[in-house]
């Protein structure tokens, strides 16, 4: 082969961010913000370059390549290597992660400059980029691993970064601990998912004898034939991991709280990349799922249910980022449903386009928030009860932040599925495969898509249209170029993202088929496209009609009157957090308390203490014999003498 092969460069996608973080760790604080930010961006950018080189290499040599780096765990039959797997699937993920990652790094240079000042600790600027680079490294490990265990390293590593970044302003939030609590919640919820993944891995090792993707998938058919129950268990436990990481029912609850992190984090980790890891996992293991129809059904319903459920909640939120968070959950539901239906390519397609437009939306939201914050400082608000993220406090921002408004509009339209933006094509592919195979799923997803358009319309209207509802919104201002430049690039991608897998061309389909096997290319069904497009337009229009009129300051959502208690449910996220607190957290707390106090201190500690006390009581009673009276000792001696003599006589 004449073309140069760059496969050996693959470890650098991990090493480059690691170098970036090490340098920042050592000198980042001393060399200032510009250096820390740009060096971290450079590291990620280089990782993106490496990813492109890998993609170029793959285009001429589409077979999977494994680049071993070293041994990791070797015990008996258990052999796990640090090894990278370059195939079309992993490279797609790498491109998304490092590409969107680089843009968000650049955005963060400007965003964090303001954020550290707003929150009053400039010393944490470098730390932010250290964490971001660590995240990129972990995510790269996740997507480029050649075995389940190494993937798990990245899997937990991104969870850690998520924890660190959600709790970045660990002294802020509700009661001062809100952010720290949110971070902990995210990590622990993810750990519940990881528990499932661990069990799945144990089962894989016991039944396959290896963790390596190639070998496992090679044997999958055989094992499924012999032990269908085991395969079902593996896939279901894996699904638990997926629901944790990709925020699906029932483990989605951490993602809305995760919005406590700085906005670039929400964009990068909690929208574009990390949360899609679950989708990636199912795509990677699509061979498993193809073998177990029951598991497929479960996955698909989990995804569809999440898509609809989260969309309803998004409808009732006022926090600009929370709406996007629930929207993310909902869109992840689409992807999971897609991979559950076997439409892996459609899922991956949506994953990519979603990374573009949802990343865009979050970053733009960040720009809006900082704009409002600036306005807030300008207006000298006593900032305690003022929440710059509350959409009720905004309004009319299209004038103050025109550029942000435009990119936001593009993102929102893409998300709503308006042709010919990226979201239209990817969502359409999912709907088509549902239409063809699972009508029930189709109905649920279409409903979710309608709600998506509606809540995006609501958000657009509340934030950008009408008149400013507060002084801060009135005085809000546009962000600097370093912030808006990534927005524009992402907007461009959101517009053009559909090209990746245009109906009839199927670039992505062909590309991924080298890894996922030849699938049936999704047809373009006019009926479906029509339905979804019309519904999206109706949703947007309806939202516009309902919300554009509201300008008064004491903001009451118009839907509240129309839907009544139903809206209260949406507003309160259907009380799921409270439900979990009641059935899991509080019982565990009570159980731990019961174990700690009555059981450990009261029973187990008393066993030893009781033995000691028994000995003591015995000694105490014997001690009384030693009364100090000589005559009484003499009497006892005599008693002994008499007894011995009596014994001698009676013998």
């Amino acid at each position, binding site marked *: 082969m004449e073309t140069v092969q760059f496969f050996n460069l693959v470890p650098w996608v991990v090493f480059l961010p690691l170098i970036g973080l090490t340098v920042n760790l050592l000198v980042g604080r001393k060399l200032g913000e510009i250096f820390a930010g740009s060096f971290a961006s450079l590291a990620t950018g280089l990782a993106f370059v490496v990813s492109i080189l890998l993609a170029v290499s793959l285009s001429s040599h589409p077979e999977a390549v494994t680049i071993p780096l070293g041994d990791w765990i070797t015990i008996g039959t258990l052999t796990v290597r640090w090894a990278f797997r370059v195939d079309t699937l992993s490279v797609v993920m790498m491109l998304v992660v490092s590409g969107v990652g680089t843009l968000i790094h650049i955005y963060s240079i400007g965003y964090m400059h303001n954020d550290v000042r707003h929150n009053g600790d400039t010393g944490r600027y470098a730390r932010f980029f250290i964490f971001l680079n660590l995240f990129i490294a972990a995510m790269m490990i996740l997507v480029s691993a050649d075995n389940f265990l190494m993937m798990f390293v990245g899997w937990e590593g991104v969870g850690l970064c998520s924890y660190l970044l959600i709790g970045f302003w660990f002294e802020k939030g509700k009661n001062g601990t809100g952010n720290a609590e949110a971070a902990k919640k995210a990590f622990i919820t993810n750990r519940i998912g990881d528990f499932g993944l661990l069990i799945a891995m144990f089962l894989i090792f016991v039944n396959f004898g290896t963790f390596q993707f190639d070998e496992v998938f090679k044997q999958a058919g055989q094992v499924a034939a012999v032990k269908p129950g085991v395969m079902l268990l593996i896939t279901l436990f894996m699904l638990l991991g997926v629901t944790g990481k990709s925020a699906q029912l029932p483990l989605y609850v951490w993602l809305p709280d995760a919005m406590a992190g700085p906005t670039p984090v929400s964009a990068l980790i909690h929208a574009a990349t990390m949360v899609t890891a679950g989708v990636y996992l199912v795509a990677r293991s699509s061979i498993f799922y193809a073998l177990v129809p029951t598991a497929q059904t479960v996955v698909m319903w989990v995804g569809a249910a999440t898509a609809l459920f989260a969309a309803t909640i998004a409808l009732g939120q006022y926090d600009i980022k929370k709406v996007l968070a629930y929207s993310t959950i909902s869109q992840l539901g689409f992807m999971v449903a897609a991979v559950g239906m076997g439409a892996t390519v459609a899922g991956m397609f949506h994953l990519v386009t979603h990374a573009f437009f949802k990343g865009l939306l979050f970053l733009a939201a960040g720009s809006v928030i900082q704009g409002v914050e600036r306005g807030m400082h300008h207006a000298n608000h006593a900032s305690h009860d003022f929440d710059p993220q509350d959409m009720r406090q905004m309004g009319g921002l299209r004038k103050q932040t025109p550029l942000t408004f435009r990119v936001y509009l593009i993102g929102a339209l893409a998300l709503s599925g308006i042709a010919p933006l990226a979201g239209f094509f990817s969502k359409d592919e999912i709907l088509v495969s549902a239409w063809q195979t699972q009508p029930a799923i189709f109905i649920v997803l279409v409903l979710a898509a309608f709600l998506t358009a509606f809540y995006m319309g609501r958000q657009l209207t509340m934030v950008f249209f009408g008149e400013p509802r507060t002084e801060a919104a009135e005085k809000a201002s546009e962000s600097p170029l370093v912030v808006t430049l990534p927005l524009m690039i992402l907007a461009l991608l959101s517009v053009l993202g559909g090209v990746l897998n245009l109906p009839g061309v199927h670039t992505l389909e062909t590309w991924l088929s080298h890894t996922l096997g030849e699938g049936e290319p999704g047809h373009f069904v006019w009926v479906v496209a029509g339905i979804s497009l019309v519904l999206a337009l109706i949703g947007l229009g309806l939202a516009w009609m309902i919300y554009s009129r509201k300008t008064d300051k004491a903001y009451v959502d118009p839907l509240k009157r129309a839907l009544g208690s139903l809206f209260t449910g949406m507003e309160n996220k259907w009380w799921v957090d409270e439900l979990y607190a009641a059935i899991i957290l509080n019982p565990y707390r009570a159980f731990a308390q019961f174990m700690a106090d009555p059981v450990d201190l009261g029973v187990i500690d008393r066993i030893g203490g009781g033995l000691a006390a028994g000995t003591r009581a015995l000694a105490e009673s014997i001690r009384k014999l030693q009364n100090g009276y000589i005559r009484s000792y003499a009497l006892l001696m*005599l*008693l002994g*003498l008499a007894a011995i003599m009596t014994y001698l006589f009676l013998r």
Partner: protein
Amino acid sequence: MTTGLFVFLTLAIIAITAAAGLILSRNTVYSALFLIINFLAVAVLYLIMGAPFIALAQITIYAGAIMVLFLFVIMLLGAEKPKEIEQMKWQRPLAFVLGGAILVEGVYALLTRVSITVTTNPASEILADPKTLGISLYTKYSLPFEIASVILLVAAIGAVVLTRMPKKDKGQ
């Protein structure tokens, strides 16, 4: 009843009565005096049983020296009539019961093992001679004898050390 038996019984009664007096008398001085009577009675018994040296030693050392020492201490401490109230309620009855039991058992042991027909020997010249005792002491029992002397020395020194008034520390 032979003369010997009569003498023995008389002495025995005196000894027992004196012992009872020792135990029961409230006044410590009386107790000491009763004990002297007891010693004397027993000394006479020794004499009868052919141990004149021991009998005299008993009178001089025990009845003489030791009991004088007792009386001195009693007088010195002024402890002729201390109050005696029994606090241990089982002590008294048990003392009698056990004392009685030992007595019964001892007497029973004696009477079942020692025939009543075996009598004491008349005093023999050789055994009664202090010289025999002396020879035995200085030959066969010379080592215990020396040890006994050391014990006496230690006791003498010990008594002195113990009773010495604690010296008031100089300069205080």
